[in-house]
């Protein structure tokens, strides 16, 4: 399975990247544990994430953003940018943003679909993406109270509060 990652078709990329190159470029040292099959995982500080995603796209052909996943880890929110490209290696760049100041840079100009993913995360988890042109409500209904983020672990609906739906019963 290991070498399957190199079997890509050369879609869009000028050169074939090997998984070792990616690993060396994004992780500290040759830690074998960060490679599972064709996946490379790396942790990045919030300040550098924009640069790293841009570098992955420019130098290594990671032109497809699979997903931005977000997890509430308690003290921090972990954002993971899952990227792939013509070589079909999956690079997962993890960023921890503090709960008190949940801010991360927006990627909408590097990967256009990120605009949508970020709005979703903003709506459900309350992470603010700086530089996003239109970070508005996207998923929850119009009547949903502000500053309530249902995917946070400590969120519970308050019994008396109105969360949308119909006000008057027939």
């Amino acid at each position, binding site marked *: 399975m290991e070498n399957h990652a190199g079997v890509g078709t050369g*879609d869009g990329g000028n050169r074939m990247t090997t998984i070792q190159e990616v690993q060396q470029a994004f992780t500290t040292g040759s830690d074998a544990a960060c490679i599972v099959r064709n996946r490379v995982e790396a942790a990045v500080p919030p300040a550098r994430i924009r640069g790293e995603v841009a570098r992955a796209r420019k130098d290594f052909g990671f032109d*497809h953003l*699979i997903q931005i*996943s977000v997890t509430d880890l308690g003290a921090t929110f972990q954002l993971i940018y*899952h990227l792939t490209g013509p070589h079909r290696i*999956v690079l997962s760049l993890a960023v921890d943003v503090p709960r008190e100041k949940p801010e991360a840079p927006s990627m909408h100009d590097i990967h256009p679909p990120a605009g949508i993913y970020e709005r979703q995360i903003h709506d459900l988890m309350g992470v603010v993406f700086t530089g996003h042109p239109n970070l*508005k409500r996207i998923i929850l209904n119009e009547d949903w109270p502000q500053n309530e983020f*249902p995917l946070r672990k400590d969120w519970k609906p308050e019994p008396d509060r109105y969360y949308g739906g119909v006000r008057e019963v027939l």
Partner: protein
Amino acid sequence: MARVIVPVGPQHPALKEPVNFRIIAEGETIVGLELDVSYNHRGIEKAAEQRDFTRVVPLLERICGICSHSHGTAFVKGIEEIMAIAVPPRAEYIRTIIAELERIHSHLLWLGVAAHEIGWNTLFMWTWRDREAVQDILEEISGNRVNYGMNIVGGVRRDITPELNKAALDRLPALEAQIAGYVELLKKQETVLLRFQGVGRLTREQALTYGTVGPTARSSGVEYDIRRDDPYCAYAEVPWDVVTDTHGDVYGKTIVRIGELRESVRIVRYCLEHLPEGDITVKAPRNAPTGHALSRYEAPRGELSHYIRTNGTDKADRLDVRTPTLANWTSVAASLVNQNLADIPVIIAAIDPCLSCTSRLTVLNPQRTSSTEMTWEDLRRRARELNRERERC
């Protein structure tokens, strides 16, 4: 020419699912639009954190009724990866068979819906008639026509007996003949060509930029198919080809989907004929160890990915679902501008939107090429201007 704002949806005959577009049209040409697709948000991701793995699978199957097997498989695949258990080959084959049958039914459904969007109900009736054969196979194997309930962590819940195997194999030749008939039909039918060719075209560069997946990407010449690029289930052992096309328009998407229909029938036949003997489940532990996995799956609409995090209990710590439709939305918004009002349903339908799980909003400014540029305030101002214009004339 006078500008009108045409609201489409959330309840609209072209869309079987709720979605709302406010389309700003000049005469019959779209100059801008605003999509709101979050009517189906139910809060499944939160619920998945509160239920154990057994109970979560039926819930995830109901994220979307058309790709129910996709969501279930993607989830159990991820959990199995975290638990590091090997699923018996027979179970892998059965999962593949169901997945491909699901793809056939989904693509036939799409073909019918696309024909219905351009008002050709005869083709709609015919494809759905032939789709019933697939539904019968699925119902015989799984006990339900839509929500198959086949998956469980560690394998599948129902076996394919030799009788079922034979019954399924017997139905395939007729299906293949019908699919071949559609190819002929669509190549010759004049109104289909008029309505599909050159409509909602995405170039290869656009397809890459907007991060499209599935048939939408493949119709623009991007060879991106998780079944081959990151094989799961039995796909590595089955002979099949990735179908691509270079048209990029609705016609190209139709060609890709019909090609995939053929490939899917091929895969199903191979799997049914080469079904390995053995168990269909392995005993999975109750709790999953702490870990995380990105489970990618090629749903009928494209790449589906589940990010799963576990914390040592029998419940997932976090389940983050990215549906194929979501990945394709940005490209739809881009390909709609400057198209004809009448083409909206076709273009939207072309990506085969699966809105049940997708809940997004995009605002598009016609003056710029990049999406998500127009704010609500802008739009309000714009609407006021339009109103004033209308009042003046």
